[in-house]
């Protein structure tokens, strides 16, 4: 069955069940990925995927069921499963579907043709070659990936909404392995956007530099330090803690931002922006997981929490309008809340300026182990880190095997400087370098 036939069959069964309020959420994607190892194509994969989620509202409660199996039998099962599930929901908040009438943004037209498989292979081979040429210590184990993918998001409901967003972009990633004196070091760099705009030599050199710069990294003495967080490290933290801004987390007592709207939660220099149509983002969206128009907003402005992120249900409970942040982790997921492209607004200065201002401290370029070491409910974090000493106001020797610990809510208040060098992690989470004093470091 095609999606169109399946959709009609589902709507038929929904009507048979006497359902007045229902929604179909559909995603489809196609991608090709090339993987290079030892300057040869090691892997080449083409993926096609799609899935449909049916959501019905019965007595103000939402029931979900999803599938990838487009058969007549499944169309009926989908409706029956959703009805059974809706009947089991006990939470008191009312769920309802969005009505037509929003004014939606318009995505810029994508005129670029999808690159051929051979072009992806060529680019990946070139990236690999450039990495080997960047430094004699680059060793086997070095890999490069180039991919191109298209995604479609569509939503239609019984209120007459019928929406569709299409996105397409290429990705290139260099994973460099260098060895010296029997030790291995790795580094990586990735880019998203248009294949023809990628500077493969630059990606290769940055990936290799990322690895080479860590050669001979040593330890750090435990203590309190002034820390400059690099973009990647801070964006990683921001991603891990984005859920604290979810009204759902707040209403369920799982975020400490309860009753904090309008209050100062961060230092004056902190403005956090959620922008679904961010100019450099590869994934621009016009509507959220419930079909509400997506729009740009400052979640924190000059340190003040201006709004939580809402979907229809949490907004109704709080007596406000949805901020258009209903999200579905995949087509099959139940509706939650998340930002789109989320970033700390750049201010001024470079990390080098911050090193000079720091004098003696630590420049943290990478934090890892977030799913274990960062707790969004408490705000506590204790993360394995690596970076460089800041000595005499300059970037010094590489360091690794230490942790940086603190509490994210306190960190927001302690950010003293925000740089101009905004960079994005996975194209979604952005931060410039920042300077923070008095961070707890555990090492030797």
């Amino acid at each position, binding site marked *: 069955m095609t999606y169109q036939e399946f959709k009609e069959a589902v709507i038929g069964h929904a009507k048979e069940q006497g359902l007045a309020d229902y929604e179909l959420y559909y995603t489809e994607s196609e991608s090709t990925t090339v993987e290079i190892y030892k300057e040869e194509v090691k*892997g080449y994969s083409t993926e096609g*995927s799609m899935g449909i*989620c049916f959501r019905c509202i019965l007595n103000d409660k939402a029931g979900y069921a999803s599938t990838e199996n487009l058969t007549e039998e*499944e169309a009926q099962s989908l409706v029956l499963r959703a009805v059974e599930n809706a009947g089991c929901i006990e939470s008191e908040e009312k769920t309802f579907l969005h009505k037509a009438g929003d004014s939606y943004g318009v995505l810029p037209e994508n005129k670029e043709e999808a690159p051929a498989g051979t072009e992806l292979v060529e680019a990946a081979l070139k990236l690999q070659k450039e990495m080997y040429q960047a430094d004699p210590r680059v060793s086997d184990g070095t890999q490069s990936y180039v991919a191109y993918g298209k995604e479609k998001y569509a939503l239609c409901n019984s209120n007459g909404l019928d929406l569709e967003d299409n996105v397409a972009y290429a990705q290139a990633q260099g994973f460099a392995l260098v060895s010296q004196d029997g*030790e291995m070091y790795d580094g990586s760099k990735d880019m998203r956007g248009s294949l023809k705009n990628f500077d493969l030599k630059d990606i290769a050199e940055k990936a290799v530099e990322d690895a080479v710069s860590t050669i001979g990294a040593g330890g750090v003495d435990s203590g309190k330090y002034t820390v400059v967080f690099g973009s990647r490290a801070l964006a990683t933290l921001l991603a891990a803690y984005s859920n604290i801004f979810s009204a759902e987390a707040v209403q369920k007592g799982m975020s400490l931002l309860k009753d904090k709207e309008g209050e100062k939660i961060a230092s004056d220099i902190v403005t956090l922006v959620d922008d679904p149509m961010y100019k450099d983002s590869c994934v621009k969206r016009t509507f959220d997981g419930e079909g509400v128009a997506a729009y740009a907003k400052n979640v924190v402005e000059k340190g003040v929490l201006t709004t939580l992120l809402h979907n229809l249900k949490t907004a109704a409970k709080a007596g406000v309008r949805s901020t258009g942040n209903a999200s579905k982790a995949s087509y099959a997921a139940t509706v939650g809340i998340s930002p789109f492209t989320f970033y700390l607004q750049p201010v001024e200065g470079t990390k080098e300026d911050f090193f000079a201002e720091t004098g003696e401290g630590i420049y943290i370029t990478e934090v890892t*182990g977030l799913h274990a*070491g960062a707790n969004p409910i*408490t705000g506590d974090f*204790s993360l394995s880190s690596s970076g460089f000493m800041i000595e005499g106001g300059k970037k010094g020797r590489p360091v690794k095997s230490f*942790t940086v610990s603190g509490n994210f809510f306190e960190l927001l208040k302690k950010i003293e400087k925000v740089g101009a060098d905004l960079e994005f992690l996975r194209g979604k989470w952005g931060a410039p370098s920042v300077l923070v004093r008095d961070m707890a470091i555990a090492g030797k």
Partner: protein
Amino acid sequence: MLSQELVKEALRRALSTGADYAEVFAEHTRSKNINIISAKVDKIGDSVISGVGIRIFKGTRCVSGSVSSLAPEAILNCADRVADAMDGSAQILDIVLRERLFGDIHPVKIVPASVENAGKIDYLREACIAARDYSDEIAQVSGSWLEVDHKIMIATSEGLLAQDRQIRTRISVTSIASKDGENQTGSTSPGARKGMELFDDHDPRELGRKASAQAVTMLHAGYINAGVMPVAIENGFGGVIFHEACGHSLEASCVALGQSQFAGKLGTTIANPKVTAIDDGTIPNGWGSINIDDEGTPAQRKVLIEKGVLKTYMIDKLNGRRMGMESTGSSRRQSYQYDPTSRMTNTYIAAGEDRDEDIISSIEYGLYAKQMGGGSVNPVTGQFNFAVNEGYIIRNGRICEPVRGASLIGKGSEVIQNIDMVGMNVERAQGMCGASSGSIPTDVGQPLIRVSSITVGGR
């Protein structure tokens, strides 16, 4: 799931451009998760995943494709697309499929999908109410139920045709204790390759109280002072230390490419002689257990490290070609959309000969990590990190006050040398492990162990 004729035709087409091996992996998975918060059902997710992943090899080169459909035309189209990425003429012309039946070593008594939501909800609610009633400081409790019914079918150009049905269930309870604008959490989440009978193994009230006890304990704990010290790591989820510090680096996915700290070390001593570590996919009804791996190779019990000596890696077919070694039944994938690679199943440090009380009393000043959180590792450098969810200071050989905010970091090849005391009472615990082939269920485990010296992060 698919007819033999269809599978054969897909294999034939996939091989048409010169591949020396082809594989069709078909899947139909039904899963449900029920979430309950404030003792009320909040959300129910209910999904069917179905599709096919096709791979072909030529030497060590792999081409793969996937499609979200079990319809014949879509599968054959996927096979053509995969073949198109190679340019040669067919080497293998004749495929004879012979179905193999592997016994089910993980019998399931009650298939979860055959039971209505109500019974599952009642059980969860009982756990959540017990958690809430544990203390006035418990501010919120959430619970979830997960059931997965994962049917797979694998056919290869070597003639193998095999199927498996993997049913797994898991219960999670998370409690939040709150005081003076501060939160602390506690959780428990047992699971197994079982059906509804999982409920028989656990009293829901016990689960709820366990999660809340941890949250309340941590609410009253101070922050640990960072430093290098000896650490006693408790059994069960404590085994995450071996999983991260060592296990990932023994997977062929990084060993074959020279990206592992343990590449080229077979037969050499890589760990303290007290350490014997095992990966065993055959443990009956274990959370990480399988009958066959996702390439159709039967599950095995492998001694990875015996008294400190590296005995074997965990190997899949593709990386096995690069290494010149046979598969160890370690190939796993989250779904047809991921290319499979070598992964862990149930991985644990085997029982040793030290008594628990001797381990604790041997530590003058250190940390007792009663409950570990998750962790991660960079297999290239071996740098790992773990969170300690529930920790206590050990002073003069005695367990003293609780401490929060601790994490353990270090280098895998060093920490396994420093495991110098190993207890006798092995327990396993459940986790989800994420890597290139997706998120898969794995067990970690160990007895109480002592790490003589490790960096403990804190404030």
